[in-house]
């Protein structure tokens, strides 16, 4: 239903420990942010894309779909950097406008690929129950897990409500569209709270008295993967340095 979520479960890297993928993706993200955009971010972006389409085997169609909207935002956001204003009427092309906009867009695009590298290979189901190990209070991780479970039920309902409204001509005019949207939001609200109430009863039957602790599937971080990742990151940093010095 959410393409990235479904891709994460289907990924060949699904069974890797989340820490491995976090090190790789966040390490690359750090490089994208901290290294000079050219050539650092470019190298990182290419690396992330190769990892995604290569070993992580994300279908290119899916990658394009996931990246489309954020890229659009990155590009619109870069437009103001191209001009300089000193008053309401005095507008000129910014002297380093193209360079700033290009560097920012390049860095953001590379960073986006790093984010996708994590998101498209690591299901939240594998992350949330492990978050308490890095200091997130259990109450928060348990609420987050409940949000994760419930949001799919609600997305289902919103989708169905929308269909039913369309069948009954709910999107013919501006006015009916607003009425329909309010109906969707209202229906989802009621759904959300009846869900909470029913789950409360259902969990009480399973013995819930305050803890929603569960066991996670056994996974051990692979030393080889971690070592390769560290080497890869170091190589990226070195390569960027060398290119900067020689360039």
């Amino acid at each position, binding site marked *: 239903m959410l393409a990235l979520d479904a891709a994460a479960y289907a990924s060949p890297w699904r069974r890797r420990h989340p820490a491995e993928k976090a090190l790789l993706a966040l390490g690359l993200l750090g490089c994208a942010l901290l290294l000079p955009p050219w050539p650092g971010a470019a190298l990182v972006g290419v690396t992330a894309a190769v990892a995604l389409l290569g070993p992580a085997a994300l279908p290119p169609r899916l990658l394009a779909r996931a990246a489309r909207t954020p890229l659009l935002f990155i590009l619109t956001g870069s437009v103001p950097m191209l001009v300089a204003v000193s008053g309401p009427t005095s507008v000129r092309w910014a002297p380093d406008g193209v360079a700033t906009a290009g560097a920012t867009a390049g860095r953001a695009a590379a960073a986006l690929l790093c984010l996708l590298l994590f998101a498209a290979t690591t299901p939240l189901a594998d992350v949330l129950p492990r978050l308490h190990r890095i200091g997130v209070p259990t109450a928060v991780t348990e609420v987050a897990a409940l949000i994760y479970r419930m*949001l799919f039920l609600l997305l289902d309902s919103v989708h169905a409500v929308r269909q039913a409204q369309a069948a009954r001509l709910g999107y013919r005019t501006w006015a009916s569209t607003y009425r329909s949207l309010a109906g969707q939001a209202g229906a989802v609200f009621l759904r959300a709270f009846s869900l909470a109430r029913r789950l409360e009863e259902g969990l009480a039957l399973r013995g819930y*008295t305050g803890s929603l602790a569960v066991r996670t599937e056994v996974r051990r971080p692979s030393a080889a993967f971690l070592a390769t990742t560290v080497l890869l990151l170091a190589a990226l940093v070195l390569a960027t340095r060398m290119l900067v010095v020689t360039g």
Partner: protein
Amino acid sequence: MHIAEGYLPPVQAAAWFAVSTPFVIHGTRNLVHQVRGNPDAKLLLGASGAFTFVLSALKIPSVTGSCSHPTGVGLGAILFRAPVMSVLGTIVLLFQALLLAHGGLSTLGANVFSMAIVGPWVAYGVFVLVRRLGGGLGVSVFCAAALADLATYCVTSAQLALAFPDPDSGFVGALAKFGSIFALTQIPLAISEGLLTVLVVRLLTRV
């Protein structure tokens, strides 16, 4: 108004984390306390968070012809108060980044500040203020939701202006630039969100 992954320079991204953290910690304490007293509150909070996520995924038409998303924070803050919304909002923003590639991890601090802190506090403050001034429920809800949406967009513009000051006029010029480019979509959207929130609250008070 999500700032995309990697868009902010690293120092500023880190600074926004530093600014947001105390609010989120305060909200977390609040939440942990609430859950300890009443275990069933977890389920309600879960439902609220899921609702906020789904609400922000509703596509609402805007004048430019494109579709945009309500922030959902106005309604959330009116219903669940601001501190708790800062935690739920943070979780929702994290989910949006990882499930929709909407926003990002490095910009999470900045996005949390605009959407999970300023938005809810403005909504809550405006709602209480307008009610005290004798505004009806509809007017208060409209003002709260629309102003929360606008405040979120102003904060985002300021965050971008700080990161990319104008070479001639500095922060102020940049604020005007970013502000005007997003105003095209955001002002109609704020009004839409205000109206929509009123309709939802009306629907809810009737049932």
